[in-house]
Structure formats: structure tokens, C-alpha cells
């Protein structure tokens, strides 16, 4: 893992902040409720630290993955707990549902919108074309999901850069996180476009 200066990390944080802000706005519009986003977290962590500080490796999550296509490649991972999936699908459908397929397709559609508004905002800022491919949803252990994504993107370091936006709904934490996992070299390109 490359070392980044404070200035570079601030620059990246600003980019992610803009992407996450747009994503929060697009969810708010969709569900007609105010959804907010925390200041994004960018940290370089070992797997051990990530599982301790972010989400534990044995937690069962709904994981939605979309590949990023366009000028930069990588993946967007949206992770929601079961409770939050209930909440979000209820907000989207306007009614509670017990049908797991309906619930998952609502979450999947939501991720599609979030990913594309996140990427669209970043793309505008950096003057590049970025869209996300159709999401794939899977219920699995967080550890299996996140480690396999880094491996699939050929990122083999013991330390990984965790870029995450967390969302809240009426002051309540939503337990929904958006991870931005770019391919090797993309962050350097982003910094270059920012002129840092």
C-alpha cells in the first residue's frame, strides 16, 4: 500500500464526500425522506483492524456489488444489515414486506441508483466517464465479501485502503455503508486530476 500525505488524503476525502453527498441526495429523493451521510471515512487498515473497527468478519450482511466501468475501473460495495434492508425497502415500497426477493430487489435497485449517482458526481468533478454495471446481490459473511473483492481486483497488500460512506435516516444510523474499491492506480489518477 502506498503512503499518502495528509493533503492527498484530504483531497480524496473531498472527492468521496461529493460522491457520497450526491448518493445521499438521490436516496432521499427516491424514498422521499431525508437521508444524510456522515463525513466519509478513509483509512489504511490491516484486515484485522478493519474487522475490529468497521464491520466484523463473521457478520452476515446483504452485500451488493457493482463493477465500475468507464475511465476508471473498480467496484462499489454496498453493505446493509438485515434491519436496514427492512427499513430501506419499506421506505422505497411505502409498505413493509416479508418477501425476501422483493426486499432484495428493492435494495439492489437502490444500490444501482446510489452507485451511479456516486460515480456520476465523481466523474463530473474529475471530468471522466464512470458508470456502474448492474449490481449483484449476495447474503454472506462480511469477511468473505470484502477480502474476495480486494483479491479479485488484484490488491494483495496486508493493508488496504478502506473508503466508506455511512448513511443515517432521521438521526438514526442506517447500518448501510458504501465502499469504494478502485483498481490499483486509480487513486493516483484521481489525485492527479485534482492537481495534487
Amino acid at each position, binding site marked *: 500500500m502506498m503512503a499518502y500525505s495528509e493533503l492527498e488524503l484530504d483531497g480524496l476525502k473531498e472527492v468521496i464526500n461529493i460522491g457520497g453527498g450526491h448518493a445521499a441526495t438521490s436516496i432521499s429523493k427516491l424514498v422521499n425522506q431525508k437521508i444524510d451521510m456522515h463525513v466519509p471515512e478513509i483509512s489504511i487498515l490491516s484486515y484485522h483492524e478493519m474487522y475490529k473497527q468497521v464491520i466484523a468478519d463473521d457478520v452476515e450482511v446483504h452485500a451488493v456489488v457493482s463493477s465500475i466501468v468507464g475511465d476508471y475501473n473498480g467496484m462499489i460495495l454496498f453493505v446493509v444489515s438485515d434491519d436496514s434492508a427492512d427499513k430501506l425497502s419499506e421506505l422505497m415500497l411505502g409498505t413493509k414486506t416479508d418477501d425476501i426477493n422483493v426486499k432484495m430487489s428493492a435494495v439492489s435497485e437502490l444500490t444501482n441508483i446510489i452507485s451511479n449517482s456516486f460515480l456520476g458526481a465523481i466523474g463530473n468533478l474529475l471530468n471522466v466517464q464512470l458508470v456502474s454495471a448492474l449490481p449483484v446481490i*449476495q447474503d454472506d459473511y*462480511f469477511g468473505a*465479501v470484502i477480502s*474476495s473483492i480486494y483479491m479479485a481486483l*488484484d490488491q494483495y497488500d496486508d493493508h488496504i485502503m478502506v473508503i466508506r460512506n455511512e448513511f443515517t435516516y432521521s438521526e438514526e444510523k442506517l447500518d448501510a455503508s458504501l465502499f469504494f474499491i478502485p483498481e490499483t492506480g486509480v487513486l493516483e489518477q484521481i489525485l492527479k486530476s485534482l492537481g495534487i
Partner: protein
Amino acid sequence: MGIADYKIALAPAKLITVGLGSCIGTIIYNEQAGIGGLSHIMLPDSHPFAKKQALNTAKFADLALPEMVDKLKQKAPRARFKAKIVGGANMFGFNALSKTGNIGQRNIEAVEEMLKELGIPLIASHVGGNSGRTMIVDLKNFETMVRIVHHDAVYI
């Protein structure tokens, strides 16, 4: 125990590793001594990374397994060992996306090859597919429980 690590313990302890995606959990065990080592590797081959300083040997199939077997043999010099492996999934059907192909499948092949080189019979495995796994090994009897989200536990 966590990712890119291994651990050796004695019965009646249990060894557990969680959230195996494309990674592989390998339990190497001897019944008489009641000793077992569980490794959680991430990658098949350390050679592309040989130039890097301070390699974590426990991360790679080709380094982790011989090292763990050495340590097991120090503790149980005459023991004959057997192995079971779990993991090596192709999560989300990622193989189409990676430049290096299906990492889970390559991990399975590397671990099987390394066990063969070490002369340790592989007596059971629960590998491949698209789902993550958690494994819990009971060192009293080598019973290995494999858990997959939304499925009943499987014993191998």
C-alpha cells in the same frame, strides 16, 4: 484466528476461522497426538512478491503450509498427518472481472499441490461454489463444521 495467519492447538480445543471467501482454510491434524494446525491463506503463490521486504508467509499457500507443518512436526515428531480444506469460492462470479482469473480456484489447486508435495493426504474438502464459509474444527475428533449463510451446517 484471522486472515493470513495460522494457529496450532491441542485437543480438546477447537480451531475456528470465519469469512473464507476465495481464501482457503486448511486443517492439518494428527489423531493420536490430538494436535492440529489451521491456516487461512489468501493467495496461491508468493513468487510474484518475492522482492518485497517482510513477506507475511502465512498469507501464501506455498509458504504457509510447509511452515505450519514444520511446527506441527516439532511438536509431534513421529506423527502422520491428514488434511481437510474449506473455501476457495468464486464470490459474486468475480472470475470474469479479474485479470488473474479465478483466485479461489487457483488457491484450491495450490493448496492441493502443496499437500501432495508435503505427503499429507487430503481426506475431505468443501471448496468452490460462490458462497463464503466459516469453519470450526474440533481437535478431539477432527470433526469439521462448515457454515454457509442461509444453509444448514455441513460436517466433513
